[in-house]
């Protein structure tokens, strides 16, 4: 899913983990984290096709209720 050029590298993941105070990860785990995070962020980038500047924060439950059918 992620373009190779846009993917996180394991060195960056190791630095972020160190910055967050986590003990070191083994290389295989760093690679899994890098792949997982890269895919998730790529999906965000691909889906954010317009500004969210005017989106109401925390409005998801209200949106679910707006989209519901009237009670039968």
């Amino acid at each position, binding site marked *: *899913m992620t373009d190779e050029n846009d993917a996180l590298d394991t060195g960056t993941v190791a630095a972020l983990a160190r910055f967050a*105070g*986590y003990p070191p990860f083994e290389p295989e785990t760093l690679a*899994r984290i890098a792949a997982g995070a890269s895919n998730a962020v790529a999906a965000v980038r691909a889906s954010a096709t317009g500004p969210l500047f005017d989106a109401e924060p925390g409005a998801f439950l209200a949106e679910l*209720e707006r989209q519901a059918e009237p009670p039968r």
Partner: protein
Amino acid sequence: MNDPAQATLTEIATALAGGAVSSEELTRDCLARAHRLNPVLNCFLRIEDEAALAAARRADELRATGRRLGPLHGVPIAIKDMFYDPARETSSGSAIRRGFRGDATAVALARLQAAGAIVLGALNMTEFALGPTGHNPFYGACRNPWNPAHIAGGSSSGSGAAVAARIAYGTLGSDTGGSIRLPAAVNGILGLKPTYGRVPRTGAMPLSWSIDHVGPLARTAADLARLLRVIAGHDADDPGASRRPVPDYEAEAAGSIEGLRIGIPQDFFFDAVEPAVQTVIEAALAMLERAGARRVAVTVPAAQHLTELGRAVVYSEAAALHGHWLRTRPADYSPQVRARIATGVAIPAAAYAEALQLRAPLLRAFCREALGECDLLVTPALAIEVPTLEHTDVGGGASMWTTIARLLRTLAPFNYLGVPALALPVGFAPGGLPVGLQLVGRPFAEGRLLQVAAEYQRHTDWHERLPPYH
């Protein structure tokens, strides 16, 4: 009555109410099956004989005086080991929470008990509810009653296996990426992920507060309807809980589906369906057409991104919830779950916030474009035949990661969207393992999904088939 073990939850509740069977004898039977089958299936982490029998005797005493606690009076059920109760340990399938006791009873569990349900014990689950196969390095893998070499699904592995094996009449599970529907599908029973906010999560182990759902598993649509009505409804301690009134789901499930429009996604959800599964799914759709429904082709907007958008949220929130233990007790996680949770550290906070803010517009687009011309969607619950434990275990070979990714492919998108989704058993693949169909509706349209499932079950008998281990 005939063999009580073959009765459904609603049938046994009626038998109990009429005095045809006592809760104590029923509970003894269920506990005996649990002890007999657990060495093979490993679906229970703890079988609570004394507490269950004491509760069953109290239920019988109350009934003898003409009192009935509610619609589950005396019915044996079981719960995933992540619903807190000061009276019992709640391990969340983990080493870290071994021996933990919550301060208050989880709301969904308390509602089941207030309605008269008898809790048989705590069910196996994936460590911290994060994994789709049912492997658990601390407590052992849960196994499938149709063939113990195969997965029971995850994360509510025991919740699926215990119902299929006729140990419990219904179970409680949680679903953050398919964790109710996958165990339901692979064990040949029903599982319902309700609309986000429909069932309070108060007192349930959190994985991702924005995407966690609590819901029931059982053998029939009527059983699910009854369980859902009991556990649904607002709770002030869950900021994500809806105030919308709870309908009579059993009444809603009783209607005809004549003229109902069933949306068939033309992209993504049917892209990678194995031929043996496709044959069974096609037969199920033909059955629904014969019952009066008609098919409509639909497109789900951004379908290929929904699972990963959900993961941006789940991994970020899970990393926050587990941050202290990731720093101080990393060796107490399995390597797989530690890696999944720690993925959140590499997701920028801005991407997490964007993923959250995109939910409402993507939900609007889904309701407008995918559900605009139909009443519900159907997809396979699982596009592949149920894999083995060996093939999906650590070191399961080069194809292991591909298989694991395919387990949640059709399920996880609807956690991000928050809409209700139900797994329905619709037959068996040639290898003898169940095949499931997924029904997906508009927000708070659980009644319509139950209606379709009930109609399908009126015309078929898959839900009456017994697994070899029962």
